[in-house]
């Protein structure tokens, strides 16, 4: 097993007020250490507001920690985000390319896979219509299919949720589950213990911005459940 990514005593402080250099600091993350091994699915569990989303942003390189070290063995990490940068007046096809590129997929790959993408989103008849004319469900389907084109080494997922109507919700959550189970390294944030038990190889428990426990799925989750 090789570690692809590790965090050591990472903390992130935000400032109250507008000025990023003055104003009272409060620590959204205080002391988080974790290691992600090649190919594993690491779960992050914790109550609302303990800094799970901030943690994913740090790992994705969107923000920088104020203390601690991130060691990266040269892998890319990005969040699974839906409908990133969608522009209502552009067509579905144009939005797919734009959004896909924002998520890091090369333009040529997106154009090559377009047919497959459109078929997955079930939008064959509408792909050249402006997204403004789509229903919320259609937009969600397109957003999901585009997100599936992003191919980071480490996939960061904030809650595994299917999108769209019942049928598509099943199809999309099946697709995410398939990706999580594959050989890809995944970090999965959730407060659903059932999902965690099913999908994760190891779990980190975060409480008040501190990584409290890390290791075996059953051990950590049992301790977490006993606590709450």
């Amino acid at each position: 097993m090789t570690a692809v990514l590790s965090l050591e005593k990472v903390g992130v402080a935000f400032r109250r007020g507008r000025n990023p250099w003055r104003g009272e600091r409060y620590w959204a993350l205080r002391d988080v250490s974790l290691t992600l091994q090649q190919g594993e699915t690491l779960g992050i569990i914790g109550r609302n507001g303990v800094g799970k989303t901030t943690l994913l942003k740090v790992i994705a390189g969107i923000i920088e920690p104020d203390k601690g070290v991130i060691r990266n063995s040269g892998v890319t990490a990005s969040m699974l985000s839906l409908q990133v940068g969608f522009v209502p007046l552009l067509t579905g096809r144009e939005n797919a390319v734009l959004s896909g590129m924002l998520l890091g997929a090369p333009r040529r790959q997106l154009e090559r896979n377009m047919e497959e993408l459109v078929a997955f989103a079930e939008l064959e008849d509408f792909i050249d219509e402006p997204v403004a004319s789509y229903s919320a469900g259609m937009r969600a389907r397109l957003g999901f299919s585009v997100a599936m084109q992003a191919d980071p080494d480490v996939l960061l997922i904030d809650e595994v949720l299917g999108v769209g109507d019942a049928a598509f919700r099943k199809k999309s959550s099946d697709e995410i589950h398939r990706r999580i189970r594959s050989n890809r390294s995944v970090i999965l944030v959730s407060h659903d213990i059932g999902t965690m038990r099913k999908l994760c190889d190891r779990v980190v428990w975060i409480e008040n911005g501190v990584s409290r426990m890390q290791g075996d799925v059953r051990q950590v989750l049992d301790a977490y459940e006993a606590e709450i």
Partner: protein
Amino acid sequence: MTPHYLQLILYKTRADLKVEAARGYMGMLWWVLEPLLYMGAFYIIFAVALKRGGENFVPWLLTGLVSWKWFDTSVRMSLTSISAGKGLMSQVYMPKLFFPAVIVLKNSVKFLVTLGLLLVFLLIYGFPLSLYWLAILPLVGLQLLLITGVAFTISALTPLWPDLKLLMNNVLMLMFFLSGVFFDTSQLQGWLSWLLSLNPMVHVIRAWRDVLLNGQWPDVPGLFYVLLLSLVLLVLGQYLLKRWDRLYPRLA
């Protein structure tokens, strides 16, 4: 800047231009119509109502306006470019250069359309197609460099210092009146002339007029100053955007 992000900037620019055209019923016609109306308003005020200027006043005024508008619109829009991209940058990482770069490119495409219109107008008005027009290309390049430098620097600063937005609105207005769009800066003397010549747009506008109207090569020392200033701003802006790259997504 990797090729991927370069491609992304180009694609986003094209998309934005398309969206702008799709927004009204008249579409791309607005790219022509808008500068015509803009220039028309100034023409009516200065040439008809105030009866200012002598021979060739209208081409002289329009040349200055076209060049100024490119600068002004790009700078104004880049002031808020990074705060406008906040939603995007908190979901995916991207070099923050992306935001002002798209603005500058978008406005440059629109400028080229306007420049084409201006050249056609000048030919119809009776200015000969001269060898000096060869200087148009490097002049476009120089002004693009200046705009990019200013746009990068102020887009990097405004999210951290929001007062800059209000300040810049006034600075731009002052620069507009002092850039020689309305009067001939070369006739001023003494300290006032020296003060005005700090404004890079004075040199750029004068160069445009030299090339398009006066049939002469532009003044090299003045443009050299603009080039130097642009490069300094370009390096500074890029440095700041990089330095605060992961700070911007945290700002409210």
